[in-house]
């Protein structure tokens, strides 16, 4: 019999009292996941950095997910019903959606919390539709209170102060060791952030610090620069791969990244610019105002760091792969993409081999297509969208590096197929 895999599981951890969570329950049998292509099952999950074109610093997006709970036994009713999963409140219950891969291993693809105000009862169908909010919703429910941030605090300390509060840490995992900004300057006027939502204050601090925030698969909050995570690169291969490693279903939205390139950055009126890049690509300016920064020196440093990060256009595109191939990937992981034209022998036999083919005797292969992404280019993952309905995932990639010449793997891969060596091999 076939192995049981490619399934989804939903785990629920409700509040038992204010800010205190109870036991985790596997509620899969009571959620409409048996037919996961149906409406009302599990929607798409999305995590993305710098989402949106023609800008950056629009920060982390972790999209909401809809769950349809079958309520004929009252499991999804409020705490007033004895059989309910919720002993205290339907609001802010932790939800974890897991995917079981071919090997039978479950891994988390989404974490969120229920939102009572968006919950809807469907009486006729004995069902309850939950809008499971992204974890940043916890951050949106707080405001920055007076005194939480102080003048002279470094950006990193301010970010830690905003995140390390009970309402957040009961839902997400916080560790000071995971908070590392790219540019760490002092907050000049903390009062500028009072009464903002925590999320708005965080976004501003992260933009000024040239850093990003995301939640990893373990539920830990990570703040770091946009530099890739290093280590081994995950490989994505196109139809031309001879070794059967093909795992790219499609490529879309391929572009040079010019929409996200800015060669003139203005922060609080202080300008940082690169004339070489504006000569080449035309003037591309972006403007920021940070009320908590009053020092012109700091404003200049922030502008310079943003310019350094975004002056060079970097290739971006979206890969569609199977859900299995997207498992275990995290934002800012390194990726190698090897996509190129398919080759067929011109004489119907074997392809000519670089270094062995005879010029004048062997024939160039027939190439099918012209689009190519060389394997020498290094990419980092800036978005992961999982689509249970189709069993696929969309991986958004951006070339690494900050100049026009970087963003390459250090050891180039020499292709085996191509032309004979002119001047080395004999004529027929």
């Amino acid at each position, binding site marked *: 019999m076939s192995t049981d895999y490619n399934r989804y599981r939903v785990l629920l951890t409700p509040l038992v009292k204010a800010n205190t969570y109870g036991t985790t329950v596997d509620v899969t049998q009571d959620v409409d996941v048996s037919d996961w292509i149906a409406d009302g099952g599990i929607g798409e999950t999305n995590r993305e950095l710098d989402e949106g074109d023609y800008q950056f610093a629009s920060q982390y997006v972790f999209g909401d997910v809809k769950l349809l709970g079958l309520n004929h036994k009252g499991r999804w009713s409020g705490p007033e019903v004895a059989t309910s999963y919720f002993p205290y409140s339907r609001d802010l219950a932790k939800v974890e959606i897991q995917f079981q891969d071919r090997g039978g291993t479950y891994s988390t693809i989404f974490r969120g919390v229920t939102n009572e105000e968006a919950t809807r009862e469907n009486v006729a169908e004995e069902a309850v539709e939950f809008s499971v909010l992204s974890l940043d919703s916890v951050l949106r429910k707080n405001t920055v209170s007076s005194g939480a941030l102080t003048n002279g605090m470094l950006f990193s300390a301010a970010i830690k102060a905003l995140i390390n509060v009970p309402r957040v840490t009961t839902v997400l995992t916080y560790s000071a060791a995971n908070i590392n900004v790219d540019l760490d300057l002092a907050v000049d006027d903390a009062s500028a952030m009072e009464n903002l939502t925590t999320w708005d204050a965080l976004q501003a601090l992260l933009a000024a610090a040239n850093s990003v925030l995301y939640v990893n698969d373990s539920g830990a909050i990570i703040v770091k620069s946009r530099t890739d995570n290093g280590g081994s690169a995950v490989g994505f291969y196109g139809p031309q791969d*001879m*070794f059967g490693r093909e795992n790219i279903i499609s490529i879309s939205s391929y572009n040079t990244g010019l929409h996200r390139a800015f060669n003139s950055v203005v922060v609080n009126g202080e300008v940082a610019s690169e004339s070489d890049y504006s000569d080449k690509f035309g003037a591309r300016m972006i403007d920021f105002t940070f009320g908590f920064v009053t020092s012109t020196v700091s404003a200049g440093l922030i502008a310079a760091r943003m310019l350094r990060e975004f002056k060079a256009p970097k290739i971006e595109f979206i890969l569609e792969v199977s859900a299995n191939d997207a498992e275990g990937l995290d934002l800012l992981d390194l990726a190698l993409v090897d996509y190129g034209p398919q080759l067929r*022998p011109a004489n119907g036999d074997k392809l000519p081999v670089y270094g062995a083919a005879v010029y004048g005797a062997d024939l160039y292969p027939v190439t*099918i297509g012209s689009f190519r992404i060389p394997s020498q280019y290094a990419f980092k993952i800036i978005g992961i969208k999982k689509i249970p309905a189709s069993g696929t995932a969309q991986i958004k990639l951006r070339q690494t590096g900050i100049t026009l010449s970087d963003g390459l793997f250090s050891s180039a891969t020499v292709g085996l197929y191509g032309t004979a060596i002119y001047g080395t091999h004999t004529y027929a």
Partner: protein
Amino acid sequence: MTITGGAKFFDRNLGLYKDGAGISATTNDALAKLMIDISRYTAWESSGSDDTTTETITWDLPTSRTIDRLLIVDHNLKQFTAQYWTGSAWADFSSVVGIDGALVGGISETAFADSTAYYEFAEVTTSRIQVTATKTQTADQEKQITTLIVTKELGTFSGYPIIAPTLNRPEVGKFALSGRLQSAKRGEIFTATITMTTHPTVADNVLAASLFDRDEAFLCWLCGGRRGSPYFQTTIKGFGLDDLYHVVTSGAHAATYVSNRYINPIDLPVSLVEALP
């Protein structure tokens, strides 16, 4: 002993480069991995070799594998041997049967004349295979091997269902202003339909059902190791000795009893589609 039955089905190639297998050759070592890819258009070829030179290919499987079949696909070798690693030494396979009958003393050929070699042998568990080649079918040519396969047999059809292989080259293109088609044809994709109508052999039905149950791709060899007279008047594409494909079943398993009498044989269509192993 001879090879019996018709179309054969094997587990996927258990020694693929993409799964972590390593392979080396005496000459043109950098090309050796082309023998363990999935392309029929790539091959390893020796360099500076002739019929007095022995080329040795050492193949490290991704992990220790239990195998009972070895294939050397699309090659030009005349004199060659194949052995497996016991853990401490190279050893001959036992109870070997090739496409021309039983072999004595393991896999050792001196006058091989076909394009593909196939061997059935007593099951072994090993992590390495060694192939040595000395002579080519046309004397003193460079040795060439397209694909090496080690695997376990899943089953052989003993009956003769209707098998219709299709080799399609998907086309991409648009009509130009002139009205002519600007198109490019992609590589061949193999598909096959197997139709069992009033099929008398229960074991074939069971085999077909087991293939349907598999989640992984498997190898399909429609000729089953047979070629020429008296088996084939003409060899068509898909039925050649070189025609091995990694496939999966496609569509539903839809067996019916003939005339709805449960004691009757069954009708069973099976669709195969080429897949990544």
